[in-house]
């Protein structure tokens, strides 16, 4: 971010004075959630930033006779949690709760959202549907603007640099009214809308007819679009869900303005615009009449279950896969292990420590693992291919055997029994035939060091069997196989193609689970990755499918940040049920194998199978994005309608 002059006025009057003096050299900053990002990316480099955080007089939500007044510095979090808005301007409260995530919502303000003027702005859309106006103060005094007067294009307003947004005013019509907001993005939080809609209704006194309907569509044009055709079709008609269903096509499809293919194809965005518009009006109607839409909404979702299994091998056949370790027992019985298996959160250091401690019968706390330094570590092939536990553990066991020999020599020389009699047990070298004959491991180590002049050191090299495959790919080519299975339950929204994983069970055969909590973590994390690939993580735009929806693989889909490369948030996953099956592996250290990569393997096919079970369509390339599902559903419906014999 480039340097700038910082000004922090403490009142509206002072702010207006500053803006008048600085003119177009100044950039106004409220919450900073857009402006600072642009400055960080150097998309803008203002000479002067006027920070409005000190204008406490602009933080309020209040009801005055027939209007709601909302100060420009009110945050999204305050809007979302306002009981007043939830009751009287529901669309705005719901929109606020759909903005970004809870952390950003503590910073971002309604005035900032209006000033930023993005066509995808959630709050803008709600204000439009609620027929709100914006109060602006500038060199020529105060004026009130309708949204179509304020917003003139994408990221463009009619404001001059000297203007300040002061307030949003929302009229409160009397009688039976309600409003609603609907948003569809790549995930449930931290997402910019693919399409969105907000609506408000005023019903006749008897509640039987739509007297006034406002439907605003977001993300589809240069600014907020009013679906006037849908609005006027409903006005004067019976206030029922059937009427909304009957006319909703007027808000989308061919009636939709042609949006750019951003975040989804233009085709898809227009298809769901109609659905979201209808649902926003339904939400508004439900509030006006006290209806419950739970059953109606549930009927649009189809459930299905899917299962898939996976097999995975430790490294490809014939791949060199050795691991070397240096392990030393110090004079106090503590253990130092040098190994090239790198900890990156998978828990390898914990597991290697456990195995070294177990092999030498010392407490976990007495083992220190040094890793991740190619300058000082013995050779390791790499922390890849789900091999760390298997090859690292086996190398540790070989090194431990060398250390034990030295400790047995020391015990034999000190205690007198035959060295073959000794074993390690809970911190002691013990004569297995005469358990009273024992000495602490540390003492044995010290005696070996200073009396026997033998160091308890193990230097070992483990090279798993992985011979190059012979004829017909036969031979002892793979050291270990891992197995995994997932059961997924999904709910598919047949109108939007959105798939939600409602339940997820995943199990791995990891051999002996050295660290059960770590295995669970691998299974849960793997399941999350798999669901991400299955449903929303677009890796690259290159797989052109001519049968797919038009404009589908637009280069705009190339992920450039954590918004476009949409990994799941906590809201996008069910509580994953992880399990492990401990089938002892004869080659594995303590019978252990692995739980890492395999845990991501069967989740996506299970989700795809569940989608097929739910709605009878198959998508063959990941991710099964809502538009691919909806396209497949429409193709299926057309095929079923086609006359027989064709």
């Amino acid at each position: 971010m480039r340097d700038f002059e910082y000004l922090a006025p403490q009142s509206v009057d002072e702010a207006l004075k500053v803006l008048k003096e600085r003119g177009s050299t100044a950039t106004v900053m409220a919450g900073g959630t857009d402006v600072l990002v642009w400055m960080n990316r150097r998309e803008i480099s203002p000479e002067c930033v006027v920070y409005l955080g000190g204008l406490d007089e602009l933080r309020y939500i209040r009801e005055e006779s027939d209007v709601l007044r909302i100060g420009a510095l009110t945050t999204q979090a305050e809007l979302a949690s306002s009981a007043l808005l939830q009751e009287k301007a529901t669309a705005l409260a719901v929109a606020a709760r759909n903005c970004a995530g809870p952390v950003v919502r503590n910073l971002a303000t309604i005035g900032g959202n209006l000033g930023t003027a993005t066509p995808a702005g959630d709050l803008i859309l709600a204000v439009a549907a609620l027929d709100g106006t914006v109060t602006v103060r500038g060199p020529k005094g105060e004026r009130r603007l309708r949204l179509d007067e304020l917003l003139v294009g994408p990221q463009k307003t009619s404001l001059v640099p000297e203007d300040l947004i002061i307030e949003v005013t929302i009229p409160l019509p009397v009688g039976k009214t309600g409003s609603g907001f609907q948003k569809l993005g790549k995930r449930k939080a931290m997402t910019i809308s693919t399409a969105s809609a907000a609506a408000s209704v005023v019903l006749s006194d008897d509640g039987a007819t739509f007297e006034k309907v406002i439907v605003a569509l977001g993300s589809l044009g240069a600014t907020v679009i009013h679906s006037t055709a849908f609005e006027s079709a409903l006005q004067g008609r019976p206030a029922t869900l059937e009427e909304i269903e009957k006319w909703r096509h007027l808000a989308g499809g061919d009636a939709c303005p042609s949006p750019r293919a951003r975040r989804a194809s233009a085709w898809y965005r227009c298809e769901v615009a109609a659905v979201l518009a209808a649902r926003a009006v339904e939400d508004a109607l439900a509030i006006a009449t006290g209806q419950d839409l739970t059953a109606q909404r549930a009927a649009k979702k189809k459930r299905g279950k899917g299962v898939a299994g996976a097999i995975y091998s430790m490294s490809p056949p014939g791949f060199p896969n050795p691991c070397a370790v240096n392990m030393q027992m110090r004079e106090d019985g503590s253990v130092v292990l040098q190994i090239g298996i790198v900890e990156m959160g998978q828990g390898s250091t914990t597991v290697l420590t456990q195995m070294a401690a177990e092999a030498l019968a010392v407490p976990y706390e007495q083992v220190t693992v040094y890793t991740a330094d190619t300058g000082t570590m013995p050779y390791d092939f790499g922390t890849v291919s789900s091999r760390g536990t298997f090859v690292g553990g086996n190398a540790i066991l070989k090194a431990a055997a060398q250390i034990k020999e030295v400790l047995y020599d020391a015990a034999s020389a000190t205690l007198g029994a035959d060295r073959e009699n000794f074993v390690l047990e809970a911190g002691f070298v013990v004569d297995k035939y005469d358990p009273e004959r024992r000495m602490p491991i540390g003492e044995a180590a010290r005696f070996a060091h200073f009396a026997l002049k033998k160091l308890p050191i193990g230097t070992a090299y483990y090279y798993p069997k992985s011979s190059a495959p012979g004829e017909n790919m036969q031979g002892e080519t793979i050291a270990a196989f891992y197995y995994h299975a997932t059961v997924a339950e999904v709910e598919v929204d047949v109108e939007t193609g959105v798939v939600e994983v409602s339940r997820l069970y995943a199990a791995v055969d990891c051999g002996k689970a050295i660290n059960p909590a770590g295995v669970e973590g691998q299974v849960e994390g793997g399941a999350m990755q798999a669901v991400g690939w299955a449903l929303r993580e677009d890796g690259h735009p290159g797989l052109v499918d001519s049968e797919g929806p038009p404009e589908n693989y637009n280069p705009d889909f190339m992920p450039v940040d954590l918004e476009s490369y949409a990994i799941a948030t906590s809201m996008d996953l069910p509580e994953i049920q992880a399990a492990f099956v401990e089938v002892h592996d004869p080659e594995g250290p303590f019978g252990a194998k692995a739980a890492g990569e395999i845990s991501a393997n069967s989740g996506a096919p299970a989700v795809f199978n569940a989608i097929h079970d739910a709605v009878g369509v198959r998508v063959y390339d990941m991710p099964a994005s809502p538009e691919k599902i909806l396209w497949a559903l429409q193709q299926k419906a057309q095929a079923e309608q086609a006359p027989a014999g064709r």
Partner: protein
Amino acid sequence: MKHEIHFVLNGEEQTVSVEPNLTLLELLRDTLGVTSPKRSCEQGECGACTVILDGKAVNSCLVLAVTIEGKAVETVDGLGDEGLHPLQKHFAELSAAQCGYCTPGMIMAAKALIDNNPDPSYEEVKEGLSGNMCRCTGYVKPVKAVLAAAEELRGSVSATSRED
């Protein structure tokens, strides 16, 4: 031009001179050496830099340091008067951290959540953590850890009030 600011960091008063283009994240990490808030996207998308500012969880990458005059900043370093805070304890006991990069930010988002809502539901915890991206855990253990910590804190609060 540098501005002198005064603020409270984890209970201790601080006075520093900052350039206006320094973010709170940069102030904490680069000027003051408090590296628990993590630098990642610097776009307000990942939540790894989350700190509590005057009682509210915010992305420290989206706050200019110069704007925190007179405010109180909490990072994970300030948690736990004696030993670990229940959130830290349950994150550790349940293995709720894997690579750990998101953990300090997630714990601060969780603390702000349970400070304001001591008895959150499972869904409320999920929503409360939805601004903090985690690539490792599938959020299963973090959500459990937050619920366990909230329960423990409620227990200690009611125990205290009984003594009174």
